[in-house]
């Protein structure tokens, strides 16, 4: 079946521009996560959505970052006024539930801010 997809796969943008990253989770998965991974590093939690509950935004690094999930499916991560330190791979994952469930990851979006 179809896995988690993300678009675009690569994005180069100029400092100060806004960017939108898209995630299509696996159908039926109620939980959706966004992470950021800097070169060669582990994953930094950004935000998760679970069903109709309010999202946990505690990992968003600044108010320039926001995310939404429409209809319990597709999610977009928006970064406003991008900075060079925002350059990283942004990974999306979905799962059937909480910590005991497998998170299925997309291939990521590589964001480069010049």
């Amino acid at each position, binding site marked *: 079946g179809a896995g988690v997809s993300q678009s675009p796969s690569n994005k180069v943008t100029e400092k100060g521009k806004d960017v939108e990253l898209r995630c299509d989770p696996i159908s039926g998965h109620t939980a959706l996560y966004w992470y950021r991974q800097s070169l*060669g590093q*582990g994953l930094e939690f950004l935000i*998760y959505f*679970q069903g109709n509950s309010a999202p*946990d935004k505690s990992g968003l690094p600044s108010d320039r970052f926001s995310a939404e999930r429409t209809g319990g499916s597709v999610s977009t991560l928006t970064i406003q006024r991008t900075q060079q330190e925002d350059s990283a791979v942004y990974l999306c994952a979905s799962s059937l539930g*909480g*910590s*005991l469930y497998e*998170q299925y*990851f997309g291939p990521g979006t590589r964001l480069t801010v010049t």
Partner: protein
Amino acid sequence: TQLLEQSPQFLSIQEGENLTVYCNSSSVFSSLQWYRQEPGEGPVLLVTVVTGGEVKKLKRLTFQFGDARKDSSLHITAAQPGDTGLYLCAGPRGTGGFKTIFGAGTRLFVKA
């Protein structure tokens, strides 16, 4: 400071050698997961451990969860080049059990 500390950060070994990588914390976790990530791809789950002292085996990989549920280890027997990748441990934090934190990972390179 990482809540989940992984060691070593990098490991380069010859095919056929054994190795152990570690995931340590000062905090108790209700469960821990191990993922493997290959270049250009997202992480893939290897195992979830939930009981203190638990040992799980997956072919040549043996996972252990510490008795106090503050640490875990991954032992690979007779490593193969296909084991090359970034090994990440992860665990839940906060209420609800959804927020997941990851360690910085151990990058393993197995030479043929």
